[in-house]
Every structure is written in C-alpha cells, then in structure tokens.
C-alpha cells in the first residue's frame, strides 16, 4: 500500500528542500510540489516529496490510525 506519512517541518533549506520530523526520525525531503510551506507546518510525505499540507489535527488523527494499523512500527524500530 502506498502511504503518505504526516510529518512536521523542522527546517527549511535552499532549493525547495526541508527537513521533516516523523516523531524522532528526521528526513530531508523536497517541497517542490507544495507552495507556501512554513516551519512547523505538517505535510504528507511520500517517496521524498511533500504532497500536501495538512492541519495538525488531521496529522494527529492520521498518525493515530496508522499507529493502530501497525504502519509506523518500522519507524518506531528505527527510532528506538
């Protein structure tokens, strides 16, 4: 299943790049497909690209369902 994971933007870089946080895991992604992203925004991330901005409430709700479905287990394993 192809999933986009909500992540918080923790650093804005040059050339439409950013660092996002999935919990304690950080990853460098491209913002080329989304306009007007600010620090602390939540974005849906898929294959290295931010696809959309989402509200913090929607991000939290989606992450909770993903956690219940076991989707985030690998992420937790990495961050452990």
């Amino acid at each position: 299943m192809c999933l986009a994971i909500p992540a918080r933007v923790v650093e804005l870089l040059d050339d439409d790049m950013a660092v996002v946080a999935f919990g304690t895991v950080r990853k460098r992604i491209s913002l080329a497909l989304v306009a007007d992203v600010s620090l602390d925004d939540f974005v849906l991330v898929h294959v290295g690209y931010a696809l959309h901005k989402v509200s913090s409430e929607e991000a939290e709700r989606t992450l909770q369902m993903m956690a219940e479905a076991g989707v985030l287990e690998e992420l937790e394993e990495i961050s452990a």
Partner: protein
Amino acid sequence: MSVDGRVSIDLVCDGGRVVEAIVMPPRPIALGPVVRGRPAREVVSVIGSLFSVCGIAQSAASVEAAEAALEIGTDRRTKQARRLLVLAETLREHLLRIGLDTASLAGEPADGKILRRAMGLPQRLKQALFPGGDAFVPGVCVGMPGAEAAETAAEASYLTQSVVYEGEKPLGEMDRDAFAQWALERSTVAARLIAPVLARGWAMVGHPETTDGGNGHLPKEASADTSCLARQAGAPLVRAFLSENGGAGLAARLAARLVEASKLPGEIAGGLAALRDVADGSEVPMCEVFREENGGRFATAFAEAARGRLEHRIVLNDGRIADYDITAPTSIHFAKSGIAARSLSALAASRREDLAVQADLLVRAIDPCVGYDVRFR
C-alpha cells in the same frame, strides 16, 4: 528507511543481465482490526487521509461499498461527479510522474511551478463540485457544476497540453514512427522523456518475452496487470509497442500513460457537461449486497486509480464495520511473482548504471506512486 509502504527489489545479475528479480511487496495493512466496531460513515471519512496518495480513488471505492452495504441509494449525478474526481486525481498522478521522470532522466530539477498547479487539480474540482467538501459522505448529493468546475477542466487541459501533448491527431492514434518524430521535436515535457528512451534503444526493455530471465518460470496468472497499460492497451500507439501476445516493455507502458493522460481532460470536460443532463433524484443500481445469516451485510466496490484497480470490501453489522479489506494494485503488481518481477527479470544492459536507470523507469512506469528500493547483487 521504510516509512511509506515501500517495495524492496533485489536484482540478481550475471554480467549485464538480470537473471532474477526478487520483489518483496510492502507489508499489507491490517485495516479490519483497526476499524472494527466503528460506524461505517466514520470509517469512510478517514480512508482518504489514511491512504492519501490516491485518497480520492480510495474514498470513492470506500463510499460506494458503504452506500451499498448500508443500502443507501446513490444519486446518479453524485456517482458521476465522484468518478470525475477520480479522473482528476489520475491525471495529477500521471502529470507528476511524467514531470519527475523527465527531470530525473535529464538530471535536472523538475518544473515545480507547473507540477504544483497539477497537484491542485483534484482538490479544486472537488471544491467546485462539492462546495461543502463532503464528496465521500454516504448519501450526499452533488449540485450542478458551475463556472469553477469548467475553469478547472480548462486548467487540466492547459497543463496536459504543456506536459504531455498538444496536437490535431490524438496521441493514441499515432504509429511508432510518428510517435518517435513527435518525441524528437521535444515540444512537451513528455516528449523529452520519450526521446532519450527511444534514442537509447530502450523501447522494449523490461519486456518479459525478450529474454529467458530468471523469472520466466513464473506462472502467467501471477502476472495480473491492472495499470494504465491494461486500460489503454486498445489504443493503436500502445498496441504498436506490444508483442503479438500482449507483452509490454518500457515504451508500451510509457505510451499508455501518455495516451491516458492526453485523453483525461476531454473526459473530465465531457463528464461535467453530461452532469447537467442527469435528472435530479435518479439513482444508480446499488452494487450487489450479500447478506449473512447473522444479519451482516457485505459489499464490494472498485475504483480505477492511476496505478490500477482498487477493490474495497466492507462487512457491516448494525451499521458498524465488522470487517474491511482493501486490495491494492501495488500488492498485485509487486507480488513476488507479479508483473514487476517478470519485467525486471528481463532487464539487460552493458553498463550497471544503465540497468539502474532502466529499473527505475520500469518500476515507476508500472506504478507511478510506489516507493521502492532497488539493490543489485
């Protein structure tokens, strides 16, 4: 790091030839236990957020299955409007894939400005057709499309002409020579993707019948293909790149994406016009609903996403979810013995760098939105 349901691919090579492709599909998501006991309406409302890469297609299949299982009649115009949203999402995925692949092959940054506009198409059409945003609530009815819907259709057409194709003759009706000539003119983003593929002699790479690759023993029935290739296989241009028994290489898959994308703006505009002819209150027949002895009901619905056919199966008891199962095309295409394994096992190139580029193009041609990792052995 695998955080988005990635496919793992190991290519076992002998010299410049792949002798076996070992494909591990993403771990399936056990949705049933998570949503069991929740009201159907609540679950339908979160499907699009959970599976947001093709959230509209997922939501469309979900709400249709839910409406059937709840025995709520679906308004004919609403069903058609949802289908148009799925088409807009499919177009977005195709434009995105073409733009990113072209940039990747050329080693250049993608045209973010035009791709950002493409990203907004489905949401813009959704807001135009369902101003309250509730397109995927069971029983909802769409209004009559207004100027904003028509403007979105025009935007879809403009973007497609910029990224894919603009011409008198439909792209799908070209023959191979005309297609190659069009690519050489490099007038669109897609032409700049096709030109190097053809120039490098890669049209047939990944064709399962071009070699006796290590996955040649796999059963044909394991190779189901519901991608846009299956949907566009009847177009003369796509047929021109297929072998006699329907086998496809890279060019056939890329051509299928271009042909489908080039047709979608017309289908969206035509569908919007047709919405006005649908009488108020007319309903489509429900999907078949099966009843269980304990009073439970289950229904199945489908949606054609960019990457292939999605199937949602809902089991309800007293209006609450008893079980929920999704069959995604990615899990079929990237099954251990699926079409991706068969195609990847047919790769051959004198340079390892070329094999890597071919593998990337082929994987993304089979599924425009899958995350994956390729390793060579």
